């Protein structure tokens, strides 16, 4: 899938006309930093990296690639965990990091217009003086770009109450594969025509290049309380999650960590976590003071009833930050336990938490690899971290098989193979398990409406029927393939 030298020369010639020489990278040293995203197990060098900073430049770059049939992989900050921004050997990386300006903040309509390369946290920092913030807060928020967040429909610890990226943006501008600039959504609460804004969100750079975003801002809650509950049994912690919801309370955040994760986080962040607990729940409540007072009483009572062995309520901002510090640094903390770890991202119905955690610990014994669980319990989004050592022959493969088993388990109990990290390069085979050939065919139909020659991030997110058939993982219904007539390329 390499580019022939004529096309490559033609491409580079055209790109040189569009951006200044220092924003067109072609040497091996310059390309290497772009060889992978946050999933560093997979690496590839692109033909070139182009770093435009105007929409017109993006349009011209896309047109040039479109004419020469050269694949384009968009890249924000490269923090993706599913290999979404993994380069194509025969294509370019279209880096959006220079689109790093917050264009405006509208304190009347509570919105902000931002460029795609702006860091997630920078939006909240800019909005803070106005008493506002941007709600979705992925753990990678200091680094990840808002364009990447839209492309992945990123979540965070607060999405149970405040929604994912898709519920927190109003409008985007995209450049389509023929170089057209389209505005999707609007600055109002709805827009005539199809909801292409929703379709683009989470489409992993496969349908268009996002070049501008209007995000919604929220007023900062007047008050916040954080409760930490310890449990002697993982199962009790899982059930407590459903009990809180049953009380009619939607916490701002509801996170769970198991024993290995607690130990790792405590050693790293000194958050005062209970080392003897089998699991802890962190429950954040926010809102107006009076409403909060009421909720804390209910949640505390519910947790006690659900057999919490100890409950700590952090009221000062300092204590709260400390409790969260442990959770937010859980990934790097686990990273210190093992040379490598592999982060999974399945979602399951809340009621299956205890069952799935039990199965994961059985799988851990089976594969003889340790696992730590840190996750968004409120919305059933698991992040099992599988510990392995890439220097031991075959251990990465074993970790991947372990991970694949976990994802298939998630699908089996009624969940999904990815809650927020996307399919990318990594989970493409599990797509064959979650979707039938007819469903995958429908995805291809949508893709071809936007990108008939399949030049935008080709080979990611949606597996070909051929690939699924070869894997033997075909989601077969009633023992027959619904589309025998479709070529299995």
């Amino acid at each position, binding site marked *: 899938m390499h580019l022939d030298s004529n096309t490559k020369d033609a491409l580079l010639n055209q790109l040189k006309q569009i951006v200044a020489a220092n924003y067109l990278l072609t040497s091996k040293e310059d390309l290497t930093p772009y060889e992978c995203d946050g999933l560093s197990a997979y690496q590839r060098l692109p033909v070139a990296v182009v770093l435009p900073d105007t929409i017109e430049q993006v349009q011209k770059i896309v047109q040039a690639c479109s004419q020469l049939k050269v694949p384009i992989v968009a890249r924000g900050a490269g923090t993706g965990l599913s290999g979404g921004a993994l380069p194509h050997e025969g294509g370019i990386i279209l880096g959006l990091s220079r689109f790093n300006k917050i264009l405006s903040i509208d304190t009347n309509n509570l919105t902000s217009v931002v460029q795609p390369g702006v860091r997630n946290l920078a939006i909240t920092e800019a909005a803070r003086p106005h008493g506002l913030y941007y709600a979705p807060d992925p753990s990678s928020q200091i680094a990840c770009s808002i364009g990447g967040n839209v492309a992945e429909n990123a979540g965070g610890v607060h999405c149970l109450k405040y929604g994912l990226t898709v519920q927190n943006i109003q409008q985007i501008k995209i450049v389509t594969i023929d170089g057209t600039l389209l505005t999707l959504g609007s600055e109002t609460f*709805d827009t005539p*025509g199809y909801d292409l804004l929703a379709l683009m969100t989470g489409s992993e750079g496969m349908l268009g290049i996002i070049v501008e975003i209007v995000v919604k801002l929220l007023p900062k809650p007047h008050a916040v309380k954080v409760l930490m509950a310890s449990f002697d049994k993982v199962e009790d912690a899982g059930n407590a999650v459903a009990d809180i919801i049953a009380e009619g309370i939607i916490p701002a955040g509801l996170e769970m960590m198991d024993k290995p994760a607690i130990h790792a986080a405590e050693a790293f962040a000194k958050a005062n976590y209970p080392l003897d607990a089998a699991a802890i729940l962190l429950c954040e409540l926010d809102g107006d003071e009076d409403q909060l007072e009421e909720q804390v009483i209910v949640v505390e009572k519910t947790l006690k009833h659900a057999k919490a062995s100890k409950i700590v309520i952090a009221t000062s901002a300092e204590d709260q930050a400390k409790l969260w510090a442990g959770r937010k640094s859980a990934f790097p903390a686990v990273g210190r336990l093992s040379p490598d770890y592999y982060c999974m991202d399945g979602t399951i119905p809340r009621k299956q938490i205890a069952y799935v955690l039990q199965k994961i610990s059985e799988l851990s014994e089976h594969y003889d690899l340790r696992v730590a669980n840190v996750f968004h319990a409120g919305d059933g989004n698991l992040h099992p971290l599988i510990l392995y050592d890439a220097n031991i022959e075959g251990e990465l493969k074993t970790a991947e098989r372990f991970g694949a088993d976990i994802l298939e388990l998630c699908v089996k109990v009624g969940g999904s193979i990815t809650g927020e990290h996307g399919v990318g390069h990594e989970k493409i085979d599990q797509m064959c398990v979650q979707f039938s050939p007819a469903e995958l065919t429908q995805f291809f139909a949508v893709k071809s409406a936007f990108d008939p020659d399949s030049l935008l991030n080709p080979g990611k997110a949606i597996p070909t029927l051929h690939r699924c058939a070869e894997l033997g993982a075909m989601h077969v219904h009633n023992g027959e393939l619904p589309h025998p007539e479709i070529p299995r390329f």
Partner: protein
Amino acid sequence: MQIKDNDISARLQQQVKSAINNKKPLCIQGGKSKLFFGNRFDAELLDLSEHTGIISYEPTELCITVRAGTKLSELEALLSENNQILPFEPPHYLFKDKDGNIHDTATIGGAIATGISGPRRAYTGSARDAILGVEIINGDGEIVSFGGQVMKNVAGYDLSRLMVRSQGTLGILLSVSIKLLPKPANDLTLSFDATQDQALAVFQALRVQQLPITASVWYDNTISLRLSASEAILKTSHTRLNNFLNEKFPTLSSAKQNTDQMSFWQEIRDHTHPFFTQTDKPIWRLSVPPATQSISQTDDALAQKDDNIEPNQLIEWGGAQRWIRSRTPANIIHNLAQSHGGYASFFYNKGADDETFPALAPELFKIHQQLKRKMDPQGIFNPNKMYQGL
């Protein structure tokens, strides 16, 4: 609440397959409550109203999966028994038969396909925000599912959300999974007098106040707010609201409890309020950025052509949704909405040739047509309903 469990998907699929084979378009019909919405077109009827029942419902998952023909009234009754609600408070509107009798027949499939949201929308999100998954009959006559029952799911393109507001033009909704919210313990409606300008300023200031507001209306020089919370919180919120008005808007009188509150919000939701029923003037819906200034006063065309004696505007959603009764020509209304960064749709009392939705930019319409052609290759799902040529 007993909801009839009746799965007719096999029969529906059969009808769709023969429509595909014969290239004969279908007119998808749920409860007939939204007959007025969209363009008229000739097609064979595909009736979803018997495809009813709850497929799965576990309140602690905050999700329900329900067949598309299930009546909104029955679904809401079931949720209410479990202290839950649909976050987007879908309007039922009402179906009036030829003898003038009114029926509350609106279905959840129709609510999702039209994507119309009610009074709560500005505070707890829209139909598209709440959708988690769909099962559809697609343009190949296959039954396929997208999304699911879990809150977070980013596997594949988000085709569930694409179905919302697509007016049945991309597939037949067989069942939908919807995110639910706990039902607030109590509602309190508070009202006070204000001019349109004052109302918009109040809405503006309230946006950052964090009162438990779940609906807002300005009509006939009165603001009505619905607050939803426990009895105790409602009490303190009432005081807080009056303190806030006192401080920021000293010329306004304080907010008083409105007694017939339940029926008021239902009338607003279902358009049985006199604003919608007692007129033969065209009724337009303007969707604008919430902070948009007063529209009638900035626009001479509207002010001159309409007698200002009867109130011709009803504002909802803290300013984001404005209903206007006006005989002003369609193109002027569309331009007016656009000049404020929004758009207008023609809701009631329109002529036979008037379109509901405003024209899309040509390059945007092109991508709509490409998508329609790919998802409905034989053009059988509600053709021309949303736009001519789609």
